[in-house]
């Protein structure tokens, strides 16, 4: 639109920086917290990790198109909740979005807590010479619960500080974290396997009290655990089978996308797309560089064996020679004995967690507020304290998260086997959003045709519909694989590839409870409001124009 014909009016802002959008999307698919954590758990696959990163990125480009398109048609509207409720009607949108953006985040809480101790607490205590404390914090049960409490405290602090302050912390964390990662990558590309082996022996003992011969013992423990995932290769099918686990890391380039603001033209659509796509591309390249660095110095087989050894001890109680998670940054720092460098790099790397974890409940707060404004929750839950803190909404997130964290930390009834259900709950919501994107040009024709993406078509079919079909198909594949784990067809024993098949009653009970609870809230409040003279179906219905 020519500026000549646009007047000065409230809200007529200029475009935001694509680089800033890139930074937040880049941090949402956080290679150190989500990435290193999920890579390490993926030690038993047969598809190559490099191949998996590339194939997943190709599918996720369509997720980015879907979200950039929806933001263009319905900007600043509140994201998945509003998109689905406007396209499908109230019930489906509420149930999927409340479960995806609120209840599922309870399960993410202990996972954030676990990452906090593995990325921040344990390495910091180790490099500061507090060997016993480091090893204690790496243990099961109480250490994980305590770590989760600290993580929750940090998240609550961020909510109290507000996004204005935290957005700045995130920007600083981006630079600090990138500097730390750069040093780690330099160490990986300048070291040698021999130096690493010697450094591992020395530091594993010095920092964490591992017994002599830890390197060879780790190799054996990894072999016993079945560590097998290759760096590259594998048939397309085998690569595909790694994706239901890998998306735990990279399904989130759209995490902050609904904040991007008013879209005034096709250029802004491209800015939205570019910010997220550049982040996905950069993280994928960074992941490949990291893998190559690991392969060069740590040795790919040893990396997977150390991962297998650790998780085999966590999940099945096997003995592990290195009594802490084989955090790749820590392994790289084993290449130096300079304690100052170790401390500086571990501190810098901890910003990957601090700059990322604060947004744990960001979307939950928004969806709770949106539901309260729609009178589907009590008015009290959207109240702000005098300092502007959403105390009640925070309690609705923190208190249930404490219960779920307790079940997870102490593995009550095998509860910690459902880690991937945290991804599954959000993927189900994304599936709903993808379907909404597919039908949008047909169900909301006038809205679509007056939008900045009206002319974006592929063989005459709206791009949003094409991208929606591909993204929904990808999500459909993930959902089928999660639920009907390939392991079920082999008559195998154990947890299966993903651990959340219908055979895992914990997973089914958790998600089933979440959906039942959101349905009960929706229909309960709808009935309650109706008795008070407010028909919630009507307040969401379109008013006739004529």
């Amino acid at each position, binding site marked *: 639109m020519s500026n000549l*014909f646009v007047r000065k009016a409230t809200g007529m802002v200029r475009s935001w920086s694509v680089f800033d959008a890139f930074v937040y999307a880049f941090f949402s698919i956080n290679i150190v917290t989500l990435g290193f954590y999920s890579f390490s758990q993926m030690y038993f696959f047969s598809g190559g990790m490099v191949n998996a990163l590339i194939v997943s990125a190709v599918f996720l480009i369509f997720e980015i198109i879907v979200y950039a398109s929806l933001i263009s048609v319905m*900007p600043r509207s509140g994201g998945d909740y509003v998109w689905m409720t*406007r396209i499908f009607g109230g019930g489906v949108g509420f149930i999927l979005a409340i479960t995806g953006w609120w209840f599922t985040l309870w399960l993410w809480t202990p996972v954030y807590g676990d990452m906090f101790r593995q990325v921040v607490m344990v390495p910091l205590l180790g490099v500061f010479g507090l060997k016993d404390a480091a090893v204690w914090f790496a243990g099961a049960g109480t250490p994980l619960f305590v770590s989760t409490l600290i993580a929750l405290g940090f998240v609550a602090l961020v909510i109290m500080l507000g996004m204005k302050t935290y957005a700045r912390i995130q920007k600083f964390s981006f630079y600090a974290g990138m500097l730390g990662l750069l040093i780690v990558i330099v160490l990986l590309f300048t070291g040698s396997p021999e130096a690493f082996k010697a450094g591992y022996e020395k530091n594993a003992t010095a920092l964490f009290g591992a017994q002599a011969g830890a390197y060879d013992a780790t190799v054996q423990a990894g072999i016993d655990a079945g560590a097998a995932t290759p760096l590259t290769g594998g048939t397309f099918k085998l690569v595909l089978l790694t994706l239901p686990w890998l998306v735990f890391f990279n399904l989130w380039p759209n995490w902050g996308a609904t904040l991007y603001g008013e879209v005034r033209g*096709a250029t802004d659509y491209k800015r939205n797309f570019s910010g997220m796509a550049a982040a996905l591309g950069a993280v994928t390249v960074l992941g490949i560089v990291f893998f190559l660095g690991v392969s060069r110095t740590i040795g790919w087989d040893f990396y997977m064996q150390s991962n297998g050894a650790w998780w085999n001890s966590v999940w099945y109680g096997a003995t592990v020679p290195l009594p802490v998670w084989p955090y790749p940054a820590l392994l790289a720092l084993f290449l130096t004995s300079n304690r100052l460098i170790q401390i500086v790099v571990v501190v810098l790397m901890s910003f990957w967690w601090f700059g990322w974890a604060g947004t744990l409940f960001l979307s939950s707060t928004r969806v709770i507020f949106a539901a309260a404004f*729609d009178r589907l929750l009590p008015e009290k839950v959207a109240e702000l304290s005098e300092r502007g803190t959403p105390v009640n909404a925070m309690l609705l997130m923190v208190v249930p998260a404490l219960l779920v964290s307790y079940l997870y930390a102490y593995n009550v009834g095998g509860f910690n086997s459902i880690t991937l259900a945290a991804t599954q709950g959000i993927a189900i919501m994304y599936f709903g959003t993808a379907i909404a994107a597919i039908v949008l040009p047909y169900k909301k024709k006038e809205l679509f045709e007056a939008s900045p993406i009206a002319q974006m078509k592929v063989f005459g079919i709206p791009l949003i519909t094409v991208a929606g079909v591909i993204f929904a198909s990808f999500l459909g594949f993930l959902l089928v694989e999660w639920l009907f784990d390939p392991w079920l067809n082999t008559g195998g024993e154990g947890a299966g590839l993903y651990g959340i098949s219908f055979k895992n009653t914990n997973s089914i009970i958790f998600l089933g409870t979440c959906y039942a609870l959101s349905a009960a809230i929706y229909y309960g409040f709808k009935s309650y409001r109706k008795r008070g003279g407010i028909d919630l179906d009507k307040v969401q219905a379109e*008013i006739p124009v004529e």
Partner: protein
Amino acid sequence: MTTIFFATDIHGSDICWSKFLNAGKFYGADKLVLGGDMTGKAVIPFIHQGGKNYRITLLEQVFEPSTDEELADMTKRVRSRGYYPYMTNPDEITELEKDPERVSKIFLAEVLKVVQQWMDLADKKLDGTDMQVYCSPGNDDMDEVDDIIRSSKRVLLVEGKVSSLDGHEMIASGWSNITPWATHREEDEDQLAVRYEAMTRQLKDPHNSIFNIHVPPYKSGLDEAPELDKDLRPVLAGNSMIPVGSKALRTAIERIQPLISLHGHIHEGRGATRIGKTLCINPGSMYEQGTLLGAIVKLGKNKIENYVLTTG
């Protein structure tokens, strides 16, 4: 009990105005209150290319209608977003690029033409009903809009006045605190305080009154907008939100404690909150999408019986 329907910031959208006029019947409301910012933000030139051919750039997409039907469809599409179609030709466009003052005059003429159409539509649609619209133009609305509203039988201009809504006194103002855009009706906080005081001192039953003030109160959560840099660019990709509401209004609400306070101005600030006992509502705005956001409030004596935000 009185039921009011409140909407705001429809910024020139024909669809939203029609929906607003129909909202009383649709929601069973007794009174309609429009919170300001009725006028649109952009003119879209329909550049004649000869014959029935036009070239139109909407949201950075080029459309080239070549039949009467296609032209009518584009006109509707442009109006649905609250923009003003302007029939022109390449020569005039070249002249206008050198003459911004003439562009402003065209803009004003298009705005006033549509406001007049809206008043005519209101008079026609609400004829034979008891329904009246209470309207106070917002900071983005030119002063010339007021005279057109005054000429309407069904739309009452309530700026700066104390009106009566079935026993509830309502004060109204579309003036805002200072914005980065130097809009038509904005002033500093001291002047706003004087403006509010001039109305509130006339209230006979302040605790049972309605504030219909375009700008939301400061730090209410209804006034959160993206932080901008000096070039009006959202910082940190819009992740940094700051309160931009009126401090004078907040003070007035804290002091008077009206029954309810209705606001707009910040389109993304949709929500409801309490300042003391006063329920404050900003229904937000999605006018570009032809969606009328609003609020239904059921008012009883000295209490709010019920309320809900709507998406119509």
